[in-house]
């Protein structure tokens, strides 16, 4: 670690890593650049990279034509709502498992995780049917509930691993200080777990935002989020690359930025703490 590496070695590493990094990132970069081109420039052969007349026209066309704002709002509502609901249900459960463990705690955690592995397609029709019966089809509420249930195991698990790092004595101190269970959780546990809860929020928001099975199959016009908004571009009419790029950029930009902040939590959350 502390050994000095020759500058030459470091330069080679750097060049190689940057080369590969840019290659992997290229599709996103290309989409971003294309979103500022005219449709003609977008398909020019040979391709144009930076030296074209940058235009914001695609963005205004996309926003006007397809009511981008509504899709965006649906995405925010569904991803945000499912995450917050999930946290509200998961915090007490994780508290129980972390601070009052019993011999069954481990089994319950693993069982919760196993529901996450249930293939969506195996329960597609029943859910579809139940949604029709309950009038939840193509509703934000219905989708919010489904995504909450899908991500609940991850939320419980992540909170559980964070809570386990909080010393039980502090909660006992609160109990001695006269705090009820509710105050103990609201005034002591939750503020202490803020970093963990924030990571959990972030990762699950991203997962819900990008979810593309239920969001495509349970929505139509009304509650469709950005995943469906983009999918509507799969049957093109005329030249549309620049507009597709603008729409894509708008759909992924917010989440990409959030994602960059949550790299560490991603590892922790998705591997259920098995890799640190």
């Amino acid at each position: 670690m502390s050994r000095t590496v020759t500058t030459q070695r470091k330069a080679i590493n750097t060049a190689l890593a940057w080369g590969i990094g840019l290659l992997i990132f290229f599709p996103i970069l290309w989409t971003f650049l294309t979103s500022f081109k005219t449709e003609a420039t977008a398909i020019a052969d040979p391709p144009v990279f930076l030296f074209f007349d940058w235009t914001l026209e695609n963005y205004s066309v996309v926003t006007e034509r397809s009511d981008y704002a509504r899709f965006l709002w649906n995405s925010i509502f569904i991803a945000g709502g499912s995450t917050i609901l999930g946290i509200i249900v998961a915090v007490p459960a994780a508290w129980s498992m972390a601070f009052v463990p019993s011999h069954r705690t481990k089994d319950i955690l693993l069982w919760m995780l196993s529901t996450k592995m249930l293939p969506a397609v195996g329960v597609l029709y029943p859910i579809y049917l139940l949604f029709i019966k309950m009038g939840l089809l193509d509703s934000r509420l219905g989708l919010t509930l489904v995504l909450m249930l899908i991500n609940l195991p991850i939320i419980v698990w992540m909170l559980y691993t964070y809570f386990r790092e909080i010393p039980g004595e502090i909660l006992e101190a609160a109990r001695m200080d006269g705090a009820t269970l509710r105050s103990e959780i609201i005034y002591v546990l939750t503020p202490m777990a803020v970093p963990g809860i924030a990571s959990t929020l972030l990762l699950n928001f991203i997962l819900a935002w990008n979810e593309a099975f239920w969001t495509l199959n349970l929505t139509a016009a009304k509650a469709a989020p950005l995943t469906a908004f983009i999918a509507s571009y799969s049957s093109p009419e005329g030249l549309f690359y620049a507009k597709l790029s603008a729409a894509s950029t708008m759909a992924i930009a917010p989440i990409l930025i959030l994602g960059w902040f949550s790299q560490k939590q991603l590892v922790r959350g998705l591997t259920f703490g098995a890799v640190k």
Partner: protein
Amino acid sequence: MATQHSRSAARLMMAPAVILLLGWMLVPLTMTLYFSFKKYLPLRGGDLGWVGFDNYTRFITSSAFWPSIQATLIIVGSVLAITVVLGVLLAILLDQPMWGQGVVRILVIAPFFVMPTVSALVWKNMFMDPVNGLFAHLWNAFGLTPVEWLSQASLTSIVMIVSWQWLPFATLILLTAIQSLDSEQLEAAEMDGAPPLYRFAYITLPHLARAITIVVLIQTIFLLSIFAEILVTTQGSFGTKTLTYLVYQRVLESQNVGLGSAGGVYAVILANIIALFLMRIVGKNLDA
């Protein structure tokens, strides 16, 4: 470490999560099982009675079944192989001293955060389109005939797109694991005169074994159910119909719910076999 009072409080507070998940698992799964034993065509007569294991045999003997299993296995297997091998190499590279490591990490991880519909559409149109795609331009530049990716090399194309989405995840996890390797171990081996390749094979790789297993299992769970990537690109044509997609078509497109449900049960069984392995590993981790 707790009192009776806190134990009953704990049970109470666990109840909502447990009940919700129990309902989420049992209700639809029971319904799927129920439908799978029925001839059930919602648009053509509805519930047409019990048919025993008819749907199960019909699903498994239909001409689409084995190709769908094959497509599923090819996609899952290839993506796993590509992401694990490239992931290990990339993780080792990223662990080396360099300038701007943080930025490179950000570049590499980015595809994971792109929603599946976007990545599928961008690849399909802007890269793989035989007329206007970048690949076509590239082929033209070398005087070659552009490939019709999504029809001529459909599975390869899907594998490429999905690998691009999952390589970041594999890399990130493997990098995290590499960084947790005690550098003194490697130094000790170096002092003992072990050459670099030997150190990689006997120290780094065994250390990564657990992380690789996790990557394989988690990705398998997600890859078995990839959907949007196929819906948006080939819609299951040109040999890209996976088990998930086949069930989806039976249920929602041809509205043969009984048959589709039987297929769903097969998918559940397949996933459970894999999940069992994952549980073992994660369960061990709980004791630590």
